[in-house]
């Protein structure tokens, strides 16, 4: 099953509202509006012809604004969540994305649908700073609870100190 076919199947089942296809230079993905996420996810898992029962990964990316050579904006700033799910029965791998605005990075949690999402969403919350509504236990997972900021954001500033530990180095950390 290709991503295109899965999108058509979703449209046939009446969940096509707002879906679009992301066709990057490599892997395609279905872009799901964030209001639709839980509905689409539940259908992907439960519908017998789709049966995406194995959640592989959830992660988020901070997308900064990108302009081409003429200065035209080719990519708006925002957050992109990407979900990878596998269907054991159909031997398929599907990626779907949710785009979030910079000012309001919140989205519904899918951990009730795939319990595997629990830790992945906690990690995304921890490192990228996206809030998952309805998550049973949303707290930091890799960093200490009192850490400030979300390191995988592109505008993350390295802290000067943590508790009593001096973190400043000479020469200073490179900024990517």
């Amino acid at each position, binding site marked *: 099953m290709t991503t295109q076919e899965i999108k058509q199947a979703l449209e046939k089942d009446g969940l096509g509202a707002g879906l679009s296809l992301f066709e990057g230079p*490599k892997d395609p993905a279905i872009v799901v509006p964030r209001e639709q996420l839980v509905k689409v996810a539940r259908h992907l898992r439960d519908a017998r012809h789709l049966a995406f029962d194995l959640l592989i990964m959830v992660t988020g990316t901070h997308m900064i604004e990108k302009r081409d050579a003429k200065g035209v904006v080719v990519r708006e700033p925002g957050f992109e969540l990407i979900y990878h799910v596998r269907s*054991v029965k159909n031997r398929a791998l599907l990626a779907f994305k949710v785009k979030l605005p910079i000012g309001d990075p919140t989205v519904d949690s899918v951990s009730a649908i795939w319990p595997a999402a629990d830790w992945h969403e906690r990690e995304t919350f921890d490192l990228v700073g996206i809030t998952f509504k309805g998550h049973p236990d949303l707290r930091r997972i890799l960093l200490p609870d009192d850490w400030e900021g979300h390191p995988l954001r592109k505008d993350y500033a390295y802290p000067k100190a943590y508790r009593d530990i001096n973190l400043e180095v000479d020469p200073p950390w490179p900024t990517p």
Partner: protein
Amino acid sequence: MADAVTTAPSSSSPARTFILPGDPLRPPDTHVDVRTQELQINMGPQHPSTHGVLRVAIWVDGEIVTRADPDIGYLHRCAEKIGESVTNIQYVPYTDRYDYLAAMNNNLGYCLAVERIAEVEVPERAQYIRTIAVELNRIASHLMAVGTYGLDVGAFTPFFYAFREREEILRILEWICGARLTYNFIRIGGVMRDAPEGWIPDILKFLDLFESRLDEFNDLLTHNHIFVQRTANVGVITLEDALAYGITGPMLRGSGLRYDLRREAPYLLYDRFEFDVPIGTGIKGQVGDCWDRYWVRILEMRESARIVRQAITQMPAGEIMAKNVRHLAFKSKPGEGYLGTENPRGELGYYLISEGQPNSYRSRIRAPSFCNLSILGKLLPGTMLADAVAIIGSTDIVLGEVDR
């Protein structure tokens, strides 16, 4: 005391009184003040059975675990942030450090993901050398898993037998790349160096010996009555749970699903080899118990040995490195993609976003141990505290990969 143990207490309950039955020294209507309450135990981060720096906060009621909360992050080394700031080629040695027991497989997963986006053609000989290296590393990793698992449940001797074999593999891998643990051998575009003179015959000699020594290991540990008693019917993961919690690799196959990415989504040259995908069938207990997960690893070692033999017979002569990637500032092509490979612990995936620069815009690691560990909070409640050690051991986690 039977009453005190079977009555489920909660931490907020006040002191309760119990009548102790059958105590001849006490009149039958005496009330004794016995306080029962949940006790929280910290298992780790320095506990040897947690295989690294895993801390599990366990709440126990007597000997029964009522709640478990794995606490990770002690080994967090900003893997994904580093992946954004160094170039793709510089990042390969970092991948060694995540799952340090299967460093070759980690190198491979990352290199394949980069090569896929950058559209690099890898010469066939390099692919065969890669196959031999990762399958040998898989055997070494499984030997570590089964050896330390015996150690966890109290069998000390098999550990040394497992390490004797593992030592041979480390010697073979050291021969080709000069390192024993973090190899940095598989590079983007191929491998670091060609098979040295005498390397292949040495592997064959090892494999002949290894298969008979595996039987010896089975006699020592696998069918050992005490070991079976400690592991069979313990920590049963049903197939539904395994899928729901995103469990992959030997743990998923131990629950009875024949699912191996080398079969389902072949990468490298795995579609050219004949091998079986062993699954747990509940020989000693139920399908998906600790013994099944252990047994799957033992059977997989034989399959890996089979693959190495086939790879050696089929290996052609030729180049070992693609032409266009021999400099550090090698630029990838723009694109984003995910590639999953079958690590000894499960599906290791790299999700990369490239913007055509030498470094990735985003580099995310899907670590199998991270997902396999997340079921612990569901699996432990209701088991005995001593079984918690057996269950954590059977998940075969590497904390370097969990925390990244």
